[in-house]
């Protein structure tokens, strides 16, 4: 077992005082970010990324990934206590979490959701530990056509699983367009800079993320008029132990939700879809399913386990293939490139210490995270009682600073505001934002893979079907792309059959 040896070494890396400290800071910051409106996983990580430029990559990614875990945990706090999902993936948690809080069982609901999150994440980390190296080893054989095919599969599955294909495509293509701005790395030509020298270096994805998710979210919360009226959270050891005692009863739900989450995380379905699916399936299969929505513990566990499993599993394709499974993973991937690491399967060969340090830190930080959230919930719930008139300007100031520090340029701050407005409008019109971030981060890499394969094949598109591996992936991608049309046709076919019968 190579993996176990490597993992043990990874624990050695992650367990230094400095890295454990970074873990704790990351989780606490993550919870704060997750609890606050307008700050979430992607832009929280994006704002703090510039601060890590000078840090060791391993410590930096440990801290940033811990912020991510923190935001995942935090979603449950606002959902249960305030009936306001801090993140979209915790919407499903409000269905049973808030009724439980109203019945005075907030402590039970929170304990159940945190523990469910922990179990989901743990399963996903186990999966990463054993599956990621295999995937990476397999992917070492990939050439440019294979990589382009995998990118294509990622993008196509977004289109295929999205609610509105046309809007998903626009969002994704805008991301590609933004990625193309600036100096073309292959030919040195200037693309879409319109004679503006400040656009030479392109539009940084961090600035876009901070604008879309940060300022955009603030504008949205302002419009909807936030009023936080929360229930009190009391968690003591007795409640925790009592809740834990009844958890084994829900083993089937835990396993189902973990599996759904892992699958949705690896394929870019996302934590939000995973949490709804986890909830829906638990409702269908549970003997108490009809009572869901009135304050069932199982209804809290199911979505939280799936969301956390999916959020964690999203790092698997990021580490093994260099393809992020979620918006936050996309930002982390951007971080890798900034720290001078080349994402992709070679990471497992060339940066063993980094990869296994990160994986080991996932085990540790989820345990640490569980302890921290269980002990400090009242503190974080108090943050939400700070008036919005103080929180909102501080978040905007932090967004502005975050955008400025990327390149020390005022233009970026203006771009951040522009993307804030765009994000607000796009969100209201139901344009998905994750595809935009994904293609903005991956755009250059996808284009390079495409151009390299075209160079090798002298412009023959048939290179994408030149061997069984690349052919399978490309075909799969096209199936995913036309999935909505295919499934509609299938349904019509079956419908007409039934009509005949």
């Amino acid at each position, binding site marked *: 077992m190579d993996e176990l040896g490597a993992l043990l070494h990874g624990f050695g890396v992650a367990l230094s005082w400095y890295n454990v400290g970074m873990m704790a800071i990351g989780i606490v910051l993550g919870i704060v970010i997750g609890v606050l409106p307008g700050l979430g996983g992607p832009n929280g990580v994006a704002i703090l990324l510039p601060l890590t430029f000078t840090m060791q990559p391993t410590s930096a990614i440990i801290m940033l990934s811990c912020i991510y875990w923190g935001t995942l945990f935090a979603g449950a706090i606002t959902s249960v206590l305030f009936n306001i999902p801090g993140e979209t993936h915790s919407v499903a948690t409000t269905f049973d979490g808030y009724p439980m809080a109203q019945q005075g069982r907030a402590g039970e609901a929170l304990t159940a959701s945190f523990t469910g999150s922990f179990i989901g994440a743990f399963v996903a980390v186990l999966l990463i530990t054993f599956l990621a190296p295999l995937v990476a080893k397999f992917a070492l054989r990939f050439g440019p056509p294979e990589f382009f095919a995998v990118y294509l599969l990622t993008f196509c599955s977004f289109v295929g699983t999205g609610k509105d294909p046309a809007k998903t495509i*626009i969002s994704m293509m805008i991301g590609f367009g933004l990625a193309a701005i600036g100096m073309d790395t292959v030919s040195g030509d200037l693309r879409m800079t319109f004679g503006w020298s400040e656009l030479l270096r392109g539009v940084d994805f961090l600035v876009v993320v901070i604008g879309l998710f940060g300022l955009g979210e603030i504008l949205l919360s302002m*419009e*909807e008029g936030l009023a936080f009226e929360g229930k009190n959270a009391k968690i003591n050891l007795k409640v925790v132990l009592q809740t834990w005692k009844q958890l084994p009863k829900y083993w089937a739900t835990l396993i189902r939700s973990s599996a759904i989450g892992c699958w949705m995380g690896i394929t870019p379905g996302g934590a939000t879809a995973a949490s709804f699916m986890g909830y829906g399936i638990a409702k269908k299969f549970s003997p108490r399913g009809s009572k869901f929505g009135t304050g069932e513990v199982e209804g809290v566990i199911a979505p939280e386990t799936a969301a956390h499993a999916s959020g964690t599993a999203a790092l698997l394709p990021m580490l093994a293939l260099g393809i992020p499974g979620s918006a936050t993973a996309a930002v982390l991937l951007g971080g890798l490139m900034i720290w001078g690491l080349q994402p992709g399967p070679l990471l497992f060969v060339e940066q063993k210490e980094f990869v296994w340090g990160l994986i080991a830190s996932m085990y540790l930080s989820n345990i640490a995270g569980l302890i921290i959230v269980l002990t400090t919930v009242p503190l974080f719930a108090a943050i939400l009682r700070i008036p919005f008139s103080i929180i909102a300007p501080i978040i905007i100031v932090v967004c502005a600073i975050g955008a400025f520090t990327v390149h020390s340029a005022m233009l970026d701050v203006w771009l951040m505001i522009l993307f804030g407005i765009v994000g607000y409008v796009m969100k209201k019109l139901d344009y998905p934002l994750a595809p935009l971030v994904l293609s903005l981060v991956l755009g250059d890499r996808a284009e390079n893979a495409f151009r390299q394969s*075209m160079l090798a094949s002298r412009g023959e598109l048939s290179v994408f079907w030149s061997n069984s591996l690349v052919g399978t992936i490309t075909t799969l991608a096209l199936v995913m792309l036309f999935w909505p049309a295919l499934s509609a046709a299938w349904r019509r076919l079956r419908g007409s059959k039934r009509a005949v019968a």
Partner: protein
Amino acid sequence: MDKDRETAAPMRGAVSERTVGVVMAIVFFLIGVVMIVDNYRIGAGWASDGPQAGYFPLRIGVIICIAAAVVVFQTLRGERGKAFVTFARLRHVLVVLVPTIVFVLAIKFLGIYVASALFIAAFMRAMDRFSWLKTIVISIGVSAMLFWMFELQFLVPLPKGPLEAMFGY
């Protein structure tokens, strides 16, 4: 889920979702056109050494145009009368957006720390009428903390103005 929110908003005194949806799609369409034109200029064809710089982006532009046309069509066929935002709510948005723009403008002249303190103070006074003492303590406190964190701890230089210059930074 979306329905409750939309039906609650009365149609009077509101911008309709159709209008905004169509305008946004047209904006995307125009972006697509700009991409096509600009990338055609630098060469979007096939050179002897493979695809030219504009090859990929030009096709992206074409896809945007097609998808935007589909969205315009869908939106026009979709239901009427849904409100995008009522004017009353739009005011809430502008109450944040306009001061934010002023704040970013002010960064250039005052530096980010002074501008931030004024920005936070303005919000606290205007929205919730906090007492002057609380306003001053919190706004200056936050700015001072940011200064400590960025200038002193992380050594990340942010835009500074005349006040910081007086203290020799």
